[in-house]
């Protein structure tokens, strides 16, 4: 276990370097002038030169990268936005809860629907439920997130008026800007449509995945052994099939959550949620390198953490796997 942790730690550092270096190189290659954007429309060339100097944009790229690393080590800081000078750490601190609300809430929704449907359609292949489930899966796989989001916002939010069309409310009451909505009820109320969008997108894949793994596990020899022992069908399913068939689901789930935390760009954009995904798009358009790198670093950490959770969960689910 210790060896596993050490290996994971070094792997995380390696991944961190790769991702940030690539981000810096991309920014360097793309012709851009953050200084003039930061300055605004009516700037003298002297002002631009001055801003360029104060943002260290006149330094060579490797020195800029070194400064970025030094700030992390020395000040635990990810730097400041070129555009408005706000701390990147603060920006991510603001955006991450929004994305996390979307991803984890969405995951609860998509699992809540795909686990029962997946299992039931595996138990009754070719039944009406199975075929209905497959239609649902097909829609979810073929339809883009933006389209599903807009349709939901139009039908449920606008035509029926049941939910807000867009926006976000803080989960913790009284936090956030004064006068803005907050509290668990408002939070959930505003998040329902984004969650449903996530549910459509992911439940489709998960129904298929769960159906396939449950069916495969049902035909395992040890399931026949359990039935030969005289175990009732429900017990066979719960004790012998489910745990074995959850292994691939856990893997994919961990990877999906890790990835989605790095930015659910489309869903956030449609519902005007100021999460990491929409922040990333905004900053990339403004050539705001520190914020982009900040989001990339956060996404890296999310992927690494969730891969780690998957490995631990795997070892817990399957005694054949040892973490070393």
């Amino acid at each position, binding site marked *: 276990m210790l060896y596993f942790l050490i290996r994971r730690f070094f792997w995380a550092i390696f991944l961190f370097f790769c991702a940030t270096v690539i981000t810096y190189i991309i920014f360097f290659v793309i012709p851009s002038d953050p200084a003039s954007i930061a300055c605004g429309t009516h700037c003298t060339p002297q002002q631009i030169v001055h801003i360029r100097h104060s943002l260290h944009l006149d330094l060579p790229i490797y020195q800029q990268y070194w400064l970025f690393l030094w700030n992390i080590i020395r000040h635990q800081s990810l730097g400041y936005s070129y555009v408005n000078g706000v701390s990147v750490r603060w920006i991510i601190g603001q955006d991450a809860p929004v994305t996390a609300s979307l991803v984890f809430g969405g995951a609860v929704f998509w699992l809540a629907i795909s686990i029962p449907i997946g299992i039931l359609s595996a138990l009754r292949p070719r039944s009406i439920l199975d075929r209905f489930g497959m239609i649902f899966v097909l829609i979810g796989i073929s339809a883009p997130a933006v389209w599903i989001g807009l349709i939901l916002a139009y039908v449920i939010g606008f035509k029926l008026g049941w939910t807000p069309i867009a926006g976000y409310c803080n989960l913790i009451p009284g936090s956030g800007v004064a006068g803005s909505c907050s509290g668990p009820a408002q939070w959930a109320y505003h998040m329902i449509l984004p969650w449903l969008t996530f549910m459509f997108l992911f439940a489709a894949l998960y129904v298929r995945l769960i159906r396939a793994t449950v069916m495969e596990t049902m035909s395992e020899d040890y399931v026949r052994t359990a039935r030969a022992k*005289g175990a009732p069908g429900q017990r066979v399913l719960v004790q012998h099939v489910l745990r074995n068939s959850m292994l691939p689901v856990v893997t994919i789930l961990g990877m999906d959550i890790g990835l989605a935390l790095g930015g659910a760009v489309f869903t956030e954009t449609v519902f005007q949620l100021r999460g990491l995904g929409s922040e990333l798009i905004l900053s990339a358009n403004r050539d705001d390198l520190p914020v982009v790198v900040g989001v990339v670093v956060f996404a890296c950490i999310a992927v690494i953490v969730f891969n780690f959770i998957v490995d631990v969960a795997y070892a817990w689910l399957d005694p054949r796997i040892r973490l070393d």
Partner: protein
Amino acid sequence: MALLEVDDLVTRFRTDDGIVKAVSGVTFSLDRGKTLGVVGESGSGKSVTFLTVMGLNDPRHTETTGSVRFDGNEILGLSTSQMRGIRGRRIGMIFQDPMTSLNPVKTIGWQLQEAVLLHNDVTKEEARKRAIDILKEVEIPRADTRVDDYPHQFSGGMRQRVMIAMALINNPEVLIADEPTTALDVTTQAQILRLMTKLQKEHEMAIVMITHDLGVVAELADDVLVMYGGRIVEKSEVHDLFEKPEMPYTWGLLGSLPRLNTTAERLEQIPGQPPSLLRPPRGCAFNPRCPYVFDRCREELPDLRAGAVGEGHTFRCHLADEDRARIWDAKKAALEAAEGSAA
């Protein structure tokens, strides 16, 4: 009254390609404490016959007719909940591949305890004690610590012992062993067979030994069923079968048995492939591979009929008695000559 009486059992599977006639009219009986050997190639219906007896076929794709009486009561067509009272309690079953027949994510002890708790109203501690006792009985060393191990921590032979332990933990009257030694190496095979005979005496149970290995049958069985194409083609007491097999398929099986003390350079083999159960051949199922085939074999299915020793030895073959006697005598002489010259 026999313990297990199977009468005219038919099992058909509905598949996308059509109906597979896996078992066609199988009739036999098994007495208490006896061992029945069931021999045949893959796809001869030997496993399906006993999965049907246990009610373990998928009911959605299976049609079954005929009769299975266990201890005088009809059990074919019992509800699943009634059947559960028999499975694992009065009839135990072990399977071919011990590597895949145990749940990989549960300890051996958990799986043994489950078998106890399903059929007995006892505490978990009592169930665990029984699990350890039965592991000792199947000669697993350090049973009281190994009970908490997972299947992957056991070798193939040890896992098959665990499977046997699990089948025997509720003292069943019948143990159905579906090729229990096929996946094991030869020395382990011998140990498992010896263990099974020992346990059979101690538990006074009947054993059905499904195998394609005539050596196993010769060693353990009292009676033998030879199956081919979903039908019984020869049924006999064991010595009689080896002494005077009555039909060409059994001759082929005996001829293909490897022997150490022979000069023959190659094993005899039965040419061709087992018959398709989707579209079985007309007449005798063995006719496309039979070296003694004649017109009648291609038209008419031979009935099970009695040979020289009477009803105790029946077989399916159209060949006349004197022809079969002549052919077998010649084959036997050839086999013995090969052994003799090697000696």
